[in-house]
């Protein structure tokens, strides 16, 4: 009995899947997705936050022994930071005065939309979508650091392409030497600062920032940890450690 009805059932489900793929691809299932997200988004949010707490607790337990040493180190760092803070305040005032003098405030069109992270698979998923005005191509930041770019948005969620993703190609430059190139994702775990001319200078520990071209300029991508230069090749490259731990991100901002 099963044999007779198995093949038609398989074909029916197979064709139904194909039909759903087509309908979703052309945007006919947006209402279905929006309806399901009304239920799934709050649950995913709870799962993600709980997961983060569990992960932090486990991490704390594992690193408990090293925390004393780290605490001493941090105390000495704190003194240095306090003096830096004073310098920063002075610089802030100077900067403000210069801005007023040059009449060059930040563009009024740039607005930041706060969003919470919902999960991290290949893409980072956030709780803002088309209903909030999010569109593919928008840049996502955390402070002055680049989180990524929106690649897809549903009614209430969006998917963010992160710099370590193999599809990421970000026009970038090194901060101190101004060497220009492309920040390319590699294996979803690291970033390669590539396509840099041999004549340019790359230094270990130099910071890599966005160079504009579709992204806000001067957003921090990461720090050079290894320079790879071979004279026979037209370009040099460097391995970059991302400035953010994407698994620990909770709040990000979409640049509208």
């Amino acid at each position, binding site marked *: 009995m099963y044999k007779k009805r198995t093949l038609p059932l398989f074909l029916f489900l197979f064709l139904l*899947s194909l039909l759903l793929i087509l309908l979703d691809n052309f945007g006919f299932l947006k209402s279905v997705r929006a309806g399901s997200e009304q239920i799934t988004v709050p649950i995913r949010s709870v799962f993600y936050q709980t997961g983060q707490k569990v992960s932090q607790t486990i991490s704390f337990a594992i690193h408990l022994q090293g925390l004393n040493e780290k605490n001493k180190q941090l105390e000495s760092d704190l003194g240095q930071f306090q003096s830096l803070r004073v310098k920063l305040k002075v610089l802030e005032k100077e900067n403000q005065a210069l801005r007023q003098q040059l009449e060059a405030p930040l563009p009024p069109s740039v607005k930041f939309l706060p969003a919470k992270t919902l999960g991290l698979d290949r893409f980072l998923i956030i709780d803002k979508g088309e209903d909030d005005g999010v569109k593919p191509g928008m840049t996502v930041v955390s402070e002055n650091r680049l989180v990524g770019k929106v690649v897809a948005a549903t009614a209430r969620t969006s998917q963010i392409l992160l710099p370590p993703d193999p599809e990421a190609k970000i026009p970038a430059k090194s901060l101190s030497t101004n060497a220009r190139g492309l920040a390319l994702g590699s294996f979803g775990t690291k970033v390669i600062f590539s396509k840099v001319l041999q004549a340019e200078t790359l230094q270990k520990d130099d910071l890599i920032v966005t160079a504009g071209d579709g992204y806000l300029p001067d957003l921090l991508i990461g720090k050079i940890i290894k320079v790879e230069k071979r004279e026979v090749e037209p370009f040099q490259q460097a391995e970059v450690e991302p400035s953010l731990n994407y698994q620990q991100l909770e709040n990000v901002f979409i640049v509208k």
Partner: protein
Amino acid sequence: MKYLIILLSILGLSFLESTVLPLNLIILPVICLAVRQRTDEALIMAFLAGMILDLSTGRILGLDSFFFLSLTLLIHLYQRRFQADRLRFLLPFTFLAVIINSTLLGGALTPVKLVINTALIIPARLFLQPFFKEEKQEQLEFA
């Protein structure tokens, strides 16, 4: 009742997969069901599991169902030849299925994740054991 429990487990796994555990978790119950359940039941569960996963991850609706149905069909075609419910079949098959799934859907797959993902078929099989019927499995035949 047993299908409700299995579906709720799949729902829970899909939330885990889309939030804190970036592994291909849903593929595990789909493979277990495909090797032990009747073909028609396994096909329906594969379709529903795919739909749940697509809805919770935000992927194109039907994409995972399409893959899981193909997987279930493949298992049923070769079930008797390879004694599909044995670990010596399940482990390499899960290994290959996870690689193909991650490649098709573009997930970041490291060797460590791949090994962990494959090994998880053992607890998944143990968890689903009480739900399996002992009756002889039916094979999908096109002839």
